């Protein structure tokens, strides 16, 4: 038996119980006290995230499976993000696919219909292994999302050697449910029956403790889970069909039945008759049944008289469904097999592990001075970097049109936009920035929230809610833990500033390479927003280029410094700039002044010019009009926030409005149809091979 409990934790269990736990009881505690399920090393800090607001219906402090906000007309938006990093490292196809299945079940647990998925993917070098990982991750996401008919409407794809052994596979899902039919994950009264749908098998034994441990080799085999989107589709359809008939729903995720039952009882007790659990293999032991993490299962709390009606809907699809036990007033979680007790533990013990606050210490960041990089070389390197190339190879493998509501599709803009059943337009975007986080996790935490906010503004939307996912190395390493704390502080500060509630999130520790080095800290946020006025259509055409915001020579923690080293200052996010600049862009969109726009982020101004160049246009820039620094490299590659690049036929309007709002805006050049060149002052850089690379890189490499 491999347990992840520390000896101290085991002592606590023995002391509270006053006896030596049975083997199954150890496993139960191990699952519930795993980092993955209990947030024991992170909970204290997560409490600092702002989780309230006039529109919030369900938020992080409720510790439910997903958060929810009001989007008008009696509808609620349910939002959740999660990763499947460790499973994807060993079986990228099934790992990524089951990640999608898992996030979907979080959404349907609330009775909400999933309407959109996002995938944020980070892999390392594109060597043989990297290609294998990426190909299979993308195929796996498509396999599940396509098969269940939920469109993947956007995402990210980034390449960094820090992820060579530990790819990051983040998926987010948005769902819609009528406000007064949201189903809770927890029960309030004893006497309800526990109903389980789906077979339980061997697969995924020990997954939760697996995710809370570093990757170590062959003993992970038991944790392999095979994706079955066909079963997933049945679970989605039927769960939504029965949602109105049940009192609580919980998906079975990490920790299997052990965690689902205990968390659903939420302080009340439960009796589970394990012999009633529908099994795929007859020879599964009672202990294994408790912690098996077989996918495509749901747990329902149901009034006794409704059990038959609920289960009959599953059986119509030939899908197993059984009454396996009940919620009790006695606050004990009891698993029994043919009347024989297998495990019997107080709810309270299971639900409240001792919290960990590990020693934390900020690593000193020593930056080697960078060499002088000629502009032409820098432009070439940045503009051909895989992070900036067309991602069509990836998103064309997703059915992003299913649902007939994808208004702004992948590749069309910085945010995706979907039409809600009430006719409103919802914008979605996920953002992370491993370069900046590796330099300063606090600044990075702020910056990714600001970036998501700006990305929503580019389509005319204002953020209304966000979910975060915090991905770090081993929390017992003081530098890693400090980065984690800093990132939470940054995210918290920025979301408070923008008044955007954090309605959910997830923590993933132990992301390390095979030598035990942590990945670059990679917190990620997914923001949802509503378009209040006009939707920006963002079609590139001839026009004047206006740069909104001040450009500072802050090259540390950028794509430039990742490639060339050095870099000087780290970008200090001034959130007020992001807010005002976003206001200006949204106003411009509503007044018909914006032909096309993009926020400035990866690759700096140069990176923002790339989409124009790739659509057959040339751009001519006058560097003296890029204000804020005299360094040409800074002007072109700094990634500091608060900035947008706008194509417009009325640059004066932007300059006038910016002046009134107290920010910078200047006409820096023009885009013209005679394609293929970037002209900076008197120097001309041919762009043919850059454009060619943009379209062919991924297709050619994979």
């Amino acid at each position: 038996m491999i347990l992840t409990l520390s000896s101290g934790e085991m002592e606590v269990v023995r002391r509270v119980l006053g006896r030596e736990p049975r083997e199954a009881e150890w496993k139960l505690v191990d699952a519930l006290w795993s980092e993955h399920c209990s947030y024991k090393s992170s909970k204290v800090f997560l409490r600092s995230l702002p989780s309230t607001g006039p529109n919030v219906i369900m938020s992080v402090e409720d510790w439910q499976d997903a958060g929810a906000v009001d989007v008008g007309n009696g509808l609620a938006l349910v939002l959740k993000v999660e990763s499947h990093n460790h499973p994807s490292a060993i079986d990228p196809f099934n790992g990524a696919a089951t990640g999608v299945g898992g996030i979907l079940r979080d959404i349907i647990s609330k009775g909400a219909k999933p309407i959109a998925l996002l995938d944020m993917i980070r892999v390392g070098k594109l060597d043989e292994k990297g290609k294998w990982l990426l190909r299979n991750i993308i195929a796996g996401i498509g396999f599940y999302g396509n098969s269940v008919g939920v469109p993947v409407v956007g995402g990210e794809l980034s390449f960094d050697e820090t992820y060579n052994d530990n790819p990051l596979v983040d998926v987010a899902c948005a769902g819609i449910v009528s406000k007064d039919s949201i189903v809770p994950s927890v029960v309030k009264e004893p006497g309800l029956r526990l109903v389980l749908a789906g077979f339980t098998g061997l697969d995924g034994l020990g997954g939760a403790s697996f995710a809370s441990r570093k990757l170590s080799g062959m003993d992970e085999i038991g944790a392999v889970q095979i994706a079955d989107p066909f079963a997933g589709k049945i679970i989605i359809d039927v769960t939504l069909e029965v949602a109105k008939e049940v009192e609580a729903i919980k998906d079975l995720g990490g920790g299997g039945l052990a965690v689902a039952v205990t968390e659903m009882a939420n302080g009340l007790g439960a009796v589970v008759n394990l012999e009633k659990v529908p099994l795929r293999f007859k020879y599964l032991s009672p202990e294994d049944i408790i912690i098996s993490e077989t996918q495509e299962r749901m747990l329902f709390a149901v009034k006794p008289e409704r059990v038959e009606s609920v289960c009959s809907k599953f059986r119509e699809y030939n899908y197993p469904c059984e009454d396996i036990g009940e919620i009790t007033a006695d606050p004990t979680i009891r698993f029994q097999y043919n009347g024989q007790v297998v495990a019997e533990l107080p709810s309270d013990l299971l639900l409240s592990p001792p919290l960990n606050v590990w020693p934390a210490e900020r690593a000193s960041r020593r930056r080697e001075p960078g060499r002088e990089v000629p502009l032409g070389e820098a432009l070439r390197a940045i503009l051909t970097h895989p992070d900036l190339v067309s991602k069509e190879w990836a998103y064309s493998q997703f059915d992003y049109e299913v649902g007939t509501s994808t208004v702004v599709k992948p590749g069309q803009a910085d945010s995706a936009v979907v039409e809600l059943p009430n006719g409103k337009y919802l914008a979605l975007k996920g953002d992370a920035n491993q370069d900046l986080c590796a330099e300063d996790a606090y600044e990075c935490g702020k910056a990714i929230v600001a970036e998501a906010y700006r990305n929503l503004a580019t389509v005319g939307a204002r953020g209304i809610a966000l979910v975060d996912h915090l991905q770090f190395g081993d929390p017992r390493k003081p530098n890693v833990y400090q980065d984690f704390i800093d990132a939470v502080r940054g995210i918290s500060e920025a979301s408070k500033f923008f008044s955007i509630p954090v309605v959910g999130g997830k923590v993933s520790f132990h992301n390390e390479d095979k030598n035990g080095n942590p990945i670059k800290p990679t917190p990620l946020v997914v923001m949802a927003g509503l378009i209040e006025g006009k939707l920006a259509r963002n079609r590139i055409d001839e026009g004047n280029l206006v740069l909104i915001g001040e450009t500072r020579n802050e090259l540390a923690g950028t794509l430039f410094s990742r490639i060339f080293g050095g870099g000087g200052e780290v970008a200090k996010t001034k959130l007020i700039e992001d807010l005002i600049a976003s206001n200006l862009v949204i106003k411009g969109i509503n007044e018909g002044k914006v032909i096309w726009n993009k926020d400035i982020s990866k690759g700096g101004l140069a990176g923002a010019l790339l989409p124009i160049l790739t659509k057959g246009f040339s751009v001519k820039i006058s560097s003296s009009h890029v204000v804020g620094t005299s360094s040409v490299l800074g002007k072109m590659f700094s990634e500091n926030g608060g900035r947008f690049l706008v194509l417009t036929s009325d640059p004066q309007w932007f300059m006038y409005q910016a002046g009134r709002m107290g920010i910078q805006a200047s006409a820096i050049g023009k885009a013209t149809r005679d394609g293929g060149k970037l002209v900076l002052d008197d120097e001309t850089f041919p762009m043919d091979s850059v454009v060619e690379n943009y379209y062919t890189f991924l297709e050619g490499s994979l």
Partner: protein
Amino acid sequence: MMYRVELIILNKDGVRDPEGETLKRYVVDSTLPGKVAEVRVGKIVVVTMEASSREEAEKLTRELAEQRRLYNPIVHKLQVRAEKVEDGSD
């Protein structure tokens, strides 16, 4: 000499096979009720190759599968079978 090598990739025992399960549940069981214990679905790669012996053909193919990730050893089991090809066709 020419060999026809079959490389069969199936999920390991104990690892689920939803395709096989679905096929069994919705197709096979209704045609052959009660007769079928299990259905598994996998991939087969048939390589027609030059080798000096059956053993060599199998060894080369197995190495190919391992080096070039034609299967994932964590999930799949591999079966390799070679036989001599008399006339080059099959």
